[in-house]
């Protein structure tokens, strides 16, 4: 179980669609949104990344940026409605910086939520998220 919790920490929630994690930022009262092992396993290492500017108002399910990984490009889709407060400048400068410890370094942006209770009900805890992951990604957790 310790291996599992380091691959998919239990102290945050996960979005089944975007694979992003959401965590309370206790210092600011906002939420941190980031990439984790399932994102990196499914897309490969990130090489290019864009994230909308602070102040951007976004709804859950809308694109807040884009990325190019080893084999694939895609949108960064916000799992939470709200206003972007900060972007992780380090990861914008060096997208691979998330790879070693994505749950510490892989946060993409912080957001002041506008409908957190509603959005929260759409997110999954780590065990439930693990269950809905495709088999080839679940296999990665046991390596």
């Amino acid at each position: 179980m310790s291996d599992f919790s380091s691959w998919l920490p239990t102290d945050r929630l996960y979005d089944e669609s975007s694979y992003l994690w959401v965590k309370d930022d206790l210092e600011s009262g906002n939420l941190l949104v980031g990439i984790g092992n399932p994102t990196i396993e499914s897309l490969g290492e990130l090489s290019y990344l864009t994230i909308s500017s602070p102040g951007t108002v976004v709804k859950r399910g809308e694109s807040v940026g884009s990325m190019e990984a080893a084999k694939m490009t895609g949108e960064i889709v916000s799992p939470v409605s709200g206003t972007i407060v900060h972007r992780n400048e380090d990861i914008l400068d060096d997208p691979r910086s998330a790879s070693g410890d994505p749950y510490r370094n892989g946060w993409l942006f912080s957001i002041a939520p506008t409908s957190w209770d509603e959005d929260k009900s759409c997110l999954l805890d780590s065990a439930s998220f693990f269950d809905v992951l495709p088999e080839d990604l679940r296999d990665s957790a046991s390596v």
Partner: protein
Amino acid sequence: MKARLLIDRSVDDQHGLSVDDALTRSSEVASITLRLYTYQTCVLVGRFQHIHDEVNLDRCRALNVPVNRRPTGGGSIIMGADQLGIALVIPPDSKLVGRKSTSLMRGCAKGIVRTLRGFGIEAEFRGKNDLVVSGRKIAGLGLYQAPGGGILFHASLLLDLDIQFMLTVLKTAFENASDRGLSAVSERIATLRREVSSDLSISGLMKAVKLGYENEFSIGFRRGQLNAEEQLLANQLLERQYRDRQWVFQTSSRIKDRVGHYKLKTKGGTLDVRAIVARRTLKSVFLNGDFIASENAIFDLESSLKWHITDAEALNRTIERSYLKNRQFWDGISATDISDAVLGAIGQSDSDSFASVPNSCFVHSGTIQ
């Protein structure tokens, strides 16, 4: 399983891209769609490329060649009557291919591999997004995931290629499309007209690709058309994205490519290595010099290092693997020599100023010998 076939001929760049995007974003991505199409002659750059570094915009304007930006990554390409566009759109929950991007890419491209096998050609994957025949590239591949989770697989399959025209409109080391440039590029690409028959038509190729995917996926594709939602979405995307200069000319990523050169004298001759680096990603590496090695061994090494992390240990492992596969084709050069030269070039890229570094899908600056 529902599977739809769309055939389009001679679409312009804006319509070609907006329809692919609409198919992938549509809320009704419930079925697999295979779109086979050709473009009116145009240049398409990759999602995060800097267009001014890639395209000779003055020549494009003079020749009335439009330029646009794909949602997929990779290098710049020309598309026209002899390059078959293949778009495979897959629903988010499809079990047809895996979820990992590597298995997605390979799974989606298997229909092309099967098609080529039908022509007696054995193709293999190499590097980030290449499909090669005996080391020569015959198709460029790309993947894009839309906000709703739909997957777009893009491929440009070469029935034929006007290399002189490509070298005219794309920025490469061969600015003047010289005989030397034409020859060097020609050696590194494969086309179906060259490999199979000069009589092969685009219609014949479309039929073969449809059959290749049907056999590979064990499904039948029925000819269809866009539904009303897809058509509306395509029109919206055309207006707000693919006709928008801000999309086409964007420089959204703050990471610019750097180039580094390094020369290393070895027992087998001088290794002259050029590396293109985007932060910690080695986008491309090119080996030149007066050493003796087979073209295939060099292509294999270069391809295996495309989009590789710049970490020394990981690079050494990859170089060793490629080297051991082709050991007999490297004369007087060791895997350590190659590693030292590649790492030297990467190290130099740290100190070089930012450079304009074109990175085309079918030709790159390192092709020069």
